[in-house]
């Protein structure tokens, strides 16, 4: 007979930690399952600071932020299973059966509701167009971060970073501090994709050049990377013939984007949003599969861990009070100019007084007014001095007195302020 839980949380990163604490706080018998030996998720290797500004008003290091939640978790009676991989989840009439794999072998547990807090994975060289061999020395920024910050081993001495995402820039600084030479950060787009503050404190502070409209087109070397070929790109990001140059290096570090991890979700029939690559969720992270919730980077890639914890807590609370039954929804629609807005829909049996929305703009913009409407009724209007795709924005709607009905549409619009 397998043990029965109310809520099973999969993934012990900041999203899963917050979800387990919240589910337990709401009275649910909760289990937290993590495949690694320690809790904290990706934060264990994010030794840089800047975490927790919203939540704690402090600039904590990643492990330090995680530690606060780990300490809080220790005060609860959440059952924690480390070094345990959730291999399969099966739908039962009254909940779910989880197949767990650990050193002790296979075992099964059951849960009424599931919170998927499996984080995200990095895009790799296979998913971008680089010709040539795949010698040792070509690795993602997250892998380079793991080598450097956890194992204490430099992935290379002469490094090239491809992609100007925050993780790539943070790694460029980190490698420089540890004595490696970072030859440059190369970005195919005409604008950097990371935060301006990281350009300042990670690149400018250390004299690391940032090359826009350039990309890596080829790797040289057999067993070990010896050089890369850099080329300029046109506005369609296609390499321009004749601009190629060869750069000797022993490590190519890829910071070319993150994708929500939803392998388990897909086996359950969870519907994914083609833009976020995460599940279509309601305000509590519940997916189209009843009793299956998603939060943190598994639901969409977040840039601030504070919001990750927030989404985890909401999913944990809702999973704890989950009861099967029919549900009615209103839809959230992001108009022209938005990349996406979350949650994709609002579940109407528990419309909160306040609804938090997250969104990203498609392009970089100056002064912009964002309006949120329900039919003709204006729910919110907010000015932004600038909007940039790498920076997720958050607004909170007051829904008191707003009569949202089934099939209703909450519409986000933006217009330039002149």
């Amino acid at each position, binding site marked *: 007979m397998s043990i029965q839980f109310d809520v099973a949380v999969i993934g012990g990163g900041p999203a899963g930690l917050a979800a387990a604490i919240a589910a337990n706080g709401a009275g649910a018998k909760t289990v937290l399952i993590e495949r690694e030996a320690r809790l904290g998720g990706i934060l264990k290797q994010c030794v840089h600071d800047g975490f927790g500004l919203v939540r704690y008003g402090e*600039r904590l290091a990643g492990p330090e932020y995680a530690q606060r939640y780990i300490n809080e978790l220790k005060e609860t009676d959440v059952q924690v299973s480390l070094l345990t991989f959730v291999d399969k989840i099966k739908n039962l009439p009254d909940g779910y059966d989880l197949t767990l794999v650990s050193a002790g072998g296979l075992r099964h547990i059951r849960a009424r509701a599931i919170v998927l807090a499996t984080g995200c994975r990095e895009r790799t060289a296979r998913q971008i167009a680089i010709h040539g061999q795949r010698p040792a020395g070509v690795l993602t920024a997250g892998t380079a971060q793991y080598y450097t*910050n956890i194992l*204490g081993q430099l992935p290379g001495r002469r490094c090239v970073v491809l992609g100007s995402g925050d993780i790539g820039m943070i790694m460029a600084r980190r490698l420089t*501090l540890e004595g490696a030479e970072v030859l440059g950060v190369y970005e195919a787009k005409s604008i950097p994709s990371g935060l*301006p*503050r990281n350009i300042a*404190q990670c690149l400018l502070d250390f004299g690391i050049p940032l090359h826009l409209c350039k990309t890596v087109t080829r790797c040289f070397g057999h067993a070990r990377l010896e050089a890369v070929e850099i080329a300029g790109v046109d506005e369609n990001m296609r390499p321009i013939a004749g601009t190629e140059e060869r750069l000797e290096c022993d490590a190519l570090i890829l910071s070319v984007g993150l994708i929500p991890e939803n392998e388990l979700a897909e086996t359950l029939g969870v519907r994914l949003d083609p833009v976020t690559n995460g599940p279509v969720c309601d305000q509590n992270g519940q997916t189209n599969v009843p009793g299956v919730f998603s939060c943190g980077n598994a639901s969409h890639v977040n840039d601030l861990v504070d919001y990750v914890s927030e989404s985890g807590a909401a999913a944990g609370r809702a999973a704890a009070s989950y009861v099967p039954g029919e549900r009615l929804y209103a839809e959230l629609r992001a108009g022209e100019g938005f990349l996406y807005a979350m949650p994709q829909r609002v579940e109407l049996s528990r419309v909160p007084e306040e609804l938090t929305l997250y969104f990203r703009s498609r392009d970089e913009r100056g002064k912009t007014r964002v309006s949120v409407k329900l039919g003709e009724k204006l729910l919110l209007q907010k000015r932004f001095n600038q909007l940039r795709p790498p920076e997720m924005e958050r607004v909170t709607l007051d829904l008191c007195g707003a009569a949202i009905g089934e099939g209703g549409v909450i519409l986000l619009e933006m217009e330039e302020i002149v």
Partner: protein
Amino acid sequence: MLRKPYKASACYERMVIIVKNLICITCPTGCRLEAEYAGGKLTVSGNGCKRGEEFALAELTNPMRSLTSTVRTANPLMMLPVRTDREIPKDKIGEVMKLLRGVVVERPVTCGEIIAGLAPVCDGSMIATCDMS
């Protein structure tokens, strides 16, 4: 650290310095600042909040940074993450990194515990940023 209100010595009074494209790193907003120093007075524009002014002033006089890194432990495949307990002068970062290379932590620590003093280089200490048993 910061002296407020900022008063320059007389010899700087006739100097005009304009610094453009300074990026405030105090919070993720990353405001682009423009600082103008004229007549012994500093004016900052572009800042979203008051901290931007303080940042510009420090950046033009004595730039400060917090430093995060790792130190070795008894386990050869497990580093301990650490950070400075305050901001340190930017030009001391290299020396602090050198100092950290010699540090090995061989005891259990709790998050926030002092790991190494920075006394030979600057004020402050490195503190652990997670528990290690």
